[in-house]
Each structure stands twice: as C-alpha cells, then as structure tokens.
C-alpha cells in the first residue's frame, strides 16, 4: 500500500489518508487481516504530523475499516463494512455526484460516463483477482 498526499487537493490531510487506505482495501492492495504500518513510521515516511496519522486511524476504526489489537497495531477488518447498505449508498452518492458534475463540464456523455464506470469496476476487480492469485 502506497500513500501519496496532495496538499493542493483541498481535502484535509487525515481524510486523504482515510480515503487512500479505503481505496487500497477496495483494490485489494491491502487485505483483511493484514497490518497497517504503525503510526510513527508512516508519519515519518509521509512527513506529516503524527497526530494526523493517529486521527486517520481513529476515523478508519470508527468506519469499521480497520481494528486495533492492543499492543499489536492496526489491522484491516475481516468483515465488510458494518454500515447499512442504504447508508453506504448515500455516502457513495456524494462521490458519484462529483464525478457526474465533472463529466458534465468535460462534456462526457451519459453513455461514455457509464461505460467508463463499467471499465473502472472491471479494472479494480481484475486487480483484486491478480492479488489473490499471487
């Protein structure tokens, strides 16, 4: 799992870490039961405040993405997300809206947009299968 921060994104730094860990879990680049880097080395590597990483991990834990084993660190949770399906979809809708708006400005048609979504889903699925195979 590689994290890359972008101070120009306007997104709070801790949320960038949260989103990227979630994306890494979704893409299978980090799998259930696998440990996340501990706070100190990750903070040093990203050269961000230790508290920022701690805040991101707390958020990931409250979202049910990771769990903390006392004295052992943080791990990706086994069960999927504990959020109710409807809540999940509401959350996701906000993100989709952004893409829809952007598509409009880039004059991407509805058909092209839907095709792209299919392609991206396929691509993630393929990545996940490849990871499982190796």
């Amino acid at each position, binding site marked *: 799992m590689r994290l890359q921060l972008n*101070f120009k*994104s*306007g997104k709070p730094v801790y949320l960038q870490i949260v989103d990227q860990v979630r994306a890494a879990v979704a893409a299978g680049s980090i799998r259930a039961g696998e440990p996340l880097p501990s706070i100190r080395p990750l903070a*040093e590597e990203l*050269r961000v*405040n*230790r*508290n920022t990483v701690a805040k991101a991990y707390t958020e990931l834990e409250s979202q049910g993405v990771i769990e903390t084993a006392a004295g052992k660190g943080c791990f990706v949770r086994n069960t999927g997300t504990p959020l109710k399906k409807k809540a999940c979809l509401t959350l996701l809708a906000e993100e989709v809206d952004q893409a829809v708006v952007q598509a409009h*400005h880039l004059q991407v048609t509805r058909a092209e947009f839907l095709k792209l979504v299919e392609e991206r889903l396929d691509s993630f699925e393929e990545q996940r299968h490849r990871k499982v195979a190796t």
Partner: protein
Amino acid sequence: MTDHAAIHIDRLVRRYGHTDAVNGLTLEVKPGRCYGFFGRNGAGKTTTIKCLLNLLRPTSGTVRVFGLDPRKAEVAVKSRIAYVPDYVAFYPWMTVRQTLDYFAAFRARWNRATESALLDRFRLDPRQNTTHLSKGQRTQLALITAICAEPELLVLDEPTAGLDPIVRREFIEAVIGAYQEGDPGRRTVFVSTHLIAEFEGLIDEFTIIEDGRAVLSSDADRARDRYQKVYARFAAPLGGTLDLGAARVLKQNGREIEVLAEGDAELVVERLKARSPEVVKTESLTLEEIFVAALQPARGSAALA
C-alpha cells in the same frame, strides 16, 4: 497546568530604538499542536521567540508559556521548553559526548535511549570535538539536546535554513518520530521558518507575521480549503465584464483565466460556469502559496478588460 495554552501572546510589542520589531502580535498555541510561525526575514519571528525565552523583555503586551510569565518564572518555563536556534554554538573544547552530558546535567529528564538512537540516525561520532562539526551536524546535535530532555514545548527558530536536503529531511523526521512519539498530547512544536513547504505536513495551525503583526492565523486544513485557485478555459475570448466578487485575477490571456478565491471559490466557479467554459478546475493553495498570497497586495479588481 495542562489547561493553559502552551504559548499565549497578547498584543506583544518589542521596540528597538525607533523600530517596532514586533508590533501588536497576538497568537495562541494549544498543547499538543504543531504551530508554524511564518514570516519573511526581519518580520519579527526571532524577536518574538526571544521574548518567549526571556532573552528579550517585551516593551508592552503579555507573553505566557504554560500560563507562566517567562520574566518571573524563568526557571519553571525553561525547564519545560527546549530551543533550537538557527545558529548553534557549543563549547569548542567539548566533544559530542561531553556536550550531551553537559546539557543533560541541566535537565530533570534525559532519555538515553532516544539519545543513542538519534546519534546513530544522524551518524554523529560521540568522540568528535564540536569544533569539527559541520553546520548540519551542529544543528543535529542541538536537536538531540532538545529532544532528549523531553520538553513539553519544542521551539525551533529557522532550524533548517542553510542545511542540505538530506539533513533537513532527517531533522523533520526526528521531530515527528523521536519527539512527538513520546507523549503526543503533551508535545507541542512551535517552528519559525520561511521554508514552509518542507514543514507543510507537520503544521496543524499557523500564523503569518509581517512587520511585527499577524497577517493571517489559521488552521492549516482550513486555510487550504479557503484559498483556492480557480482556472477556466473558454471556447472564445471573453468579452464584457465578469463579476467575480472579491476574487483576485492572477492571470488572464485570451480564453484562459486564473483566479484566486478566498473562501468564495463556489461563487467564482458558479459565475465562470455561467459563461459555459470548456474546462473549470479548482485547486487548493499550499501553505507556501497562501503565504505569498497573504503578503502580496491585492491587484486590481476581477473585471475583465
């Protein structure tokens, strides 16, 4: 004690002759935060820091460190602070080892494990005489003396100016790792610098100082959210006027326009979109760009030629 701000500065004035080096500065640093103090050379950063350490007396205004007046409670304040100045001098007859022991003798706490870990990390030879250390190595040694004492407040004054990129990187990593790790809630950093980019990830909150006054104080994430650059490209050159509110036009040539929005990016984007652009992009400013924007006088209105 923990209820007090780590640093509280209220309407601080420090005058040298007829010059006001600091002229009505107010800021507050909460415990556990990493606070950036950004300003150009001569803006009043070092004078402010010297008032915190009782190396200078304020002309007027108040300075409190953990609720204490550094003039009246100098020992109590200094026992909780460590300071790394931009230029570090050690006793020339001492070795690295002797220098560390000398500093440790003044401190109630001294973390030997951190000391040896940092000596290794910085590849410093304890037997070396301090006169033979490079500028980078002297700064590294000063940082070790500061971190090993496990102070509640670490004050860094232009710590990385004039150092090579590797030393800078290791310096910041040591502040994040060795210093913050100990007791994160009670590890406060106050760093003055004009090399803002390299501290970007570390800074929770900051003040930009110019002519001895605070020009802007903000939470770092909030500032990046507030200051946005909006770029738009149109199919044809824009005619007429385009009211972009208080936003500042940074660049405009033909079909392209770049605007700096301060808190009203949505309005700017909306107004630009009303002209059916081909592309609209927004991007946050980095702290360094915010620093430049805050210190540059506004340039004209947003009306198009």
